[in-house]
């Protein structure tokens, strides 16, 4: 047995399906073999393809040393915790997985990760915000490793028209964990013979990115910018009437109401926010007012057919789509919308008395139903399609007379009353009511589910002894977002009732 603790360099690559972990692995083997090293790689085929995460293992050892020792190294088929010199993660959460697997060891492991996210289906399918915050992962990664290199390599790949594996290879070359010259890495790309130019550019971006300081996280709410005189007047009013901590949010809200309807509507919005700010004595930073400013704007500017038609016909939207699909100047790009309004959405936009009539009449509903059974495709880039939506957007001036508008204002009044009443002696409770209106949004089933759960929870909490209300609201809010069918919510409501 040799006395020295000499052992192969060990590399673990954690990749998500489609990230080219196999390509990166092959490049590393080529780099090593091209530089006089013995190398082995292993992986499990097929798993990554289907969007799961998978581990590639590469080990390498100088051929000359092996000859001097007289024996070849015995390479491991799978990374051994405590023994991994370089860990590469193609995505931030996979960095966490590498740490979980024990691959990352302080003083030993150089950790290279892309800071971008590929969200897992569990994060995507949540009723609200299901995203796992990766800030703790990045923090732990920095202290758990010898060296932590982390930047948005997906963006670098897109910028250079290459793939993330080439950016990762560049970062690996720059990290210094492997004893090879930059040229050896570039030669591996060249000898693979595929997309050489783009991959070399991606490589260069990765090499450069590895040496730079990580970009600072951007501030939470960007400053609202009024565009015209009405907006500026609103900003002035906010500056004189509302406390500093809520001004930016309130301006965002007021400008939204202005865009949505008219100056009168924006003024009404500010009246209501001001009403709350006057009684908001529970926290120095006006948490309640901020929350109401945010939610009230969204509730007042609910998305009806008029709003959707307005947003869908704006020139800036067309430009954004063209940019998203990377259209060349002048290249025709058609846009086809998928609409499937139900009777309820049609009635929402009708004058209140007519809508009420329809909703009361089985006959009228039956007459209309054949027209609503199927979804409609509207080509917004055709003149007819555009005119149809454009005409809908023009109904804005009649919005105050629509069925939904009346109902929406009633709901808002009721909600604000509840907030104000609660704020008198239980600030937390008031805050929870202000917050939970958030679930009332959207269209169709989403809207109805949110509305009925909102109503059920504020009613359930109101029936509880004062001391239990705030905590019950928090519990119910969480339960309301647990599942679509409402099993958890139903159980929680029942439990809340029995406790009472």
């Amino acid at each position, binding site marked *: 047995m040799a006395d020295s603790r000499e052992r192969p360099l060990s590399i673990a690559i954690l990749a998500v399906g489609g990230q080219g972990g196999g390509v990166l692995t092959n490049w590393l083997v080529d780099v090593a073999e091209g530089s006089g090293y013995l190398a082995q790689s292993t992986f499990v085929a097929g798993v990554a393809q289907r969007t799961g995460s998978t581990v590639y293992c590469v080990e390498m050892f100088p051929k000359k040393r*092996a000859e001097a020792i007289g024996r070849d190294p015995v390479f491991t088929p799978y990374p051994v915790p405590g023994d991994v010199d370089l860990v590469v993660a193609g995505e931030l959460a996979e960095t966490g997985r590498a740490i979980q697997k024990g691959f990352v060891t*302080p003083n030993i492991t150089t950790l290279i990760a892309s800071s971008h996210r590929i969200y897992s*289906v569990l994060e995507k399918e949540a009723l609200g*915000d299901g*995203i796992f915050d990766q800030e703790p992962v990045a923090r732990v990664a920095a202290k758990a490793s010898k060296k932590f290199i982390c930047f948005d390599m997906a963006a670098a790949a897109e910028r250079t028209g290459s793939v993330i594996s080439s950016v990762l290879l560049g970062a690996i070359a720059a990290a210094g964990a492997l004893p090879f010259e930059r040229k050896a890495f570039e030669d591996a790309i060249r000898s693979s013979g595929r997309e050489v130019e783009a991959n070399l550019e991606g490589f260069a971006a990765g090499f450069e990115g590895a040496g730079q300081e990580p970009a600072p996280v951007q501030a939470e709410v960007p400053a609202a910018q009024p565009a015209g005189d009405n907006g500026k007047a609103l900003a002035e009013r906010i500056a004189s009437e509302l406390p500093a901590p809520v001004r930016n949010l309130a301006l965002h809200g007021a400008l939204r109401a202005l865009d949505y309807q008219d100056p009168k509507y924006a003024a009404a919005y500010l009246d209501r926010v001001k009403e709350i700010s006057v009684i908001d004595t529970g926290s120095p930073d006006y948490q309640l007012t901020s929350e109401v400013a945010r939610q009230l704007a969204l509730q007042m500017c609910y998305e009806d057919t008029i709003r959707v038609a307005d*947003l869908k016909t704006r020139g800036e939207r067309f430009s954004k789509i063209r940019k998203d699909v990377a259209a060349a100047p002048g290249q025709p790009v058609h846009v086809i919308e998928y609409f*499937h309004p*139900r009777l309820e959405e049609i009635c929402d936009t009708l004058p209140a008395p007519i809508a009420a009539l329809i909703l009361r009449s089985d006959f009228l509903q039956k007459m209309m139903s054949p027209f609503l059974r199927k979804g409609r495709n509207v080509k917004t880039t055709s003149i007819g399609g555009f005119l149809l939506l454009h005409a809908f957007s023009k109904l804005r001036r009649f919005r105050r007379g629509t069925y939904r508008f009346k109902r929406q204002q009633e709901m808002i009044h009721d909600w604000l009353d509840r907030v104000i009443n609660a704020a008198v002696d239980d600030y937390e409770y008031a805050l929870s009511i202000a917050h939970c209106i958030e679930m009332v949004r959207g269209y169709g089933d989403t809207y109805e589910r*949110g509305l009925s759960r909102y109503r059920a929870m504020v009613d359930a909490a109101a029936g509880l002894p004062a001391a239990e209300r705030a905590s019950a609201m928090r519990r119910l809010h969480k339960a309301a977002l647990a599942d679509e069918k409402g099993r958890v919510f139903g159980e929680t409501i029942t439990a809340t009732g029995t406790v009472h």
Partner: protein
Amino acid sequence: MVERSFKKEVQKLRLGEGQEFAGEGILAITKALLQSGVAYVGGYQGAPISHLMDVLSDAEEILGELGVHFESSASEASAAAMAAVSVNYPLRGAVTFKSTVGTNVASDALANLASGGVKGGVVIIIGEDYGEGSSIMQERSHAFAMKSQMWLIDPRPNVPGIVNAVEHAFALSEASNTPVFLQMRLRACHVHGRFIAKDNRPPEMSLREAMENPQRDTDRVVLPPASFEHEQEKIRDRWPAAVEYIRTHKINEVFDGERSDIGIIVQGGLYNTLLRTLERLGVADAFGGTQLPIYVLNVAYPIIDDEIKDFCANKSAVLLVEEGQPDYIEQALNTILRHCGSDTRIIGKGVLPMAGEYTSQVMRSGAVKFLEQYDEKFSAPQDPMQVVSQFIEEINPHVPPRPPGLCTGCPERPVFASLKLLQEELGDFHISGDIGCHLFSVLPPFNMGNTTMGYGLGAAGASAFNTESSRPALSIMGDGGFWHNGLTSGIGNAVFNKSDALTIVIDNNYAAATGGQDLLSSKGESESRSTQHPIERAVRGVGVKWAKTVRTYDIDKMRKALKEAISKKGTGPKVLVAQSECMLNKQRREKPLFANAVQNGKRMIADRFGVDEDTCTGDHACMRLSGCPSLTVKPNPDPLKRQPVSYVDNSCVGCGNCGEVAHEAVLCPSFYKAQIIFNPSGLDNFLWDLRQKVIGWLQRRADRQRLKRA
């Protein structure tokens, strides 16, 4: 159109004596087969040997030059039965499949093959799908070797070791008239390494020669009384012959160490992990040097009694590293040692877990326990996992699980979206699942499917529910499973038993889950295989009256067809063929064609879906009916809204599922389809300009009005 093409790499199979071969395990195995003079090769794809089948398929030309017949078998049973020609003739052959599942399917043929015994060497290359990355139940193939008295080679997982094992396997098979399993563990199949090649050898007897000179020997047919004699032969003749071969050729290896009082016995496939574990514990080096002698079982079955006795002589205790359960080897070693009166203790499952994969960390813990008890000088270095345990604890709540799912644009997605919508309307059904990509339906976001009983057994898995009920049981089968056995075991069975059940056969033109191999019903033309046999015709052929083929992306039609099938009674079994091409394969085929056409100035239209972030509600109902990798979320750009918005990334292939789902589930008006026209015609440009003029004018007017209001 397979997932990975080996067309270029198979040229390495032509390397001759003395040249260095560099490549993956699967290619090395193929080269070793050619060096061994095989006459035929067959198999059925399945991880981890799918790519071995692809290599063989891509190497058909080279195989043909050598006179080697390659068959892409209909099932593992067909593959194993191929080896029947080695019973009467000195023809060497190899078959390959996934194990234990494939071995289960093949075991009828294998048991018959092993009973009569073989004249020509037969090697069964099994891809042992066990441990991390596995997709099947966790069992050992070892039991098959024991029950049929076949030998099981489990070589050290390096390329030269694997090549050597293939060559020995044929010789061992012939020396003992017994088919031999060569077990390839998950990661060994794709291990990259090098070895010095030999010349390829054409088979000693060609298939044609054998066919033209038929031989038969009733003693080799599994029929009484020969079958009784076969059992005696196995024990009396074949076993000792195998032992003799294994001993004389030193297939099992002993690596000597300084210690003479303790040692380690390990399955060949685990050697590398064991050695690195010992190196980390300071009792071995990274080059095979070790303080404790190690006896490596490159042949895991049979155990060579004398080698065990020799190795254990004068040792007080030996650590046995045997992965999986039951502990067959441990039982065997104890029997051997007790019979000869040795008092060497075998320490195996006492310090190592009975069940589960033996990762380095698992081995470490077992080795430490063993060494602490039997090596007075040993003191364990700090456990690296302990060093990092605080970090792991800290991040555990923040790492989202990442279950696998259907690929971008997968044609199976709309089938499950339809089923989910149907269940929302009519309530839940019992759904019997099968094996294939479609089994991902069990995971989020679809969460449907009750059981999976094996490849092609989806319909059979619901056959007990052949009784009067207001709610029929549904079953799902893939095209791969259908042709593997589902046509008879599921559909034929339902016809014969007068079932009213509905089976949805997902027909995506390929055995997609294993990498896109062709099937009988594949739409593409194939030079070497006969394709284009529609599934609907096959089921009608066995007596199904109600059969329909529906394009999967048409959710409206799909729902209607499902409803009709569910409501129909007394018509016998119903088969709904959900048909659309596997998107991975389609993209692989069409992407270059599309790019080429655009390059050549042809008018082409690319579809891409998108979501308007302004109107997206952040409820993600669309996700719960999709799970498409390209339909994802991003932080809400609206400073007032907290919920992440849906977002279609650049990988969208415009399959249409998003739009269909938005319509059928009455989701929200945020989805749009962008049609990008490349090389527009004169008419395109004229219309575009005209529309731009009108729409642009209206937009500018609206902008001015809005600015006035702002």
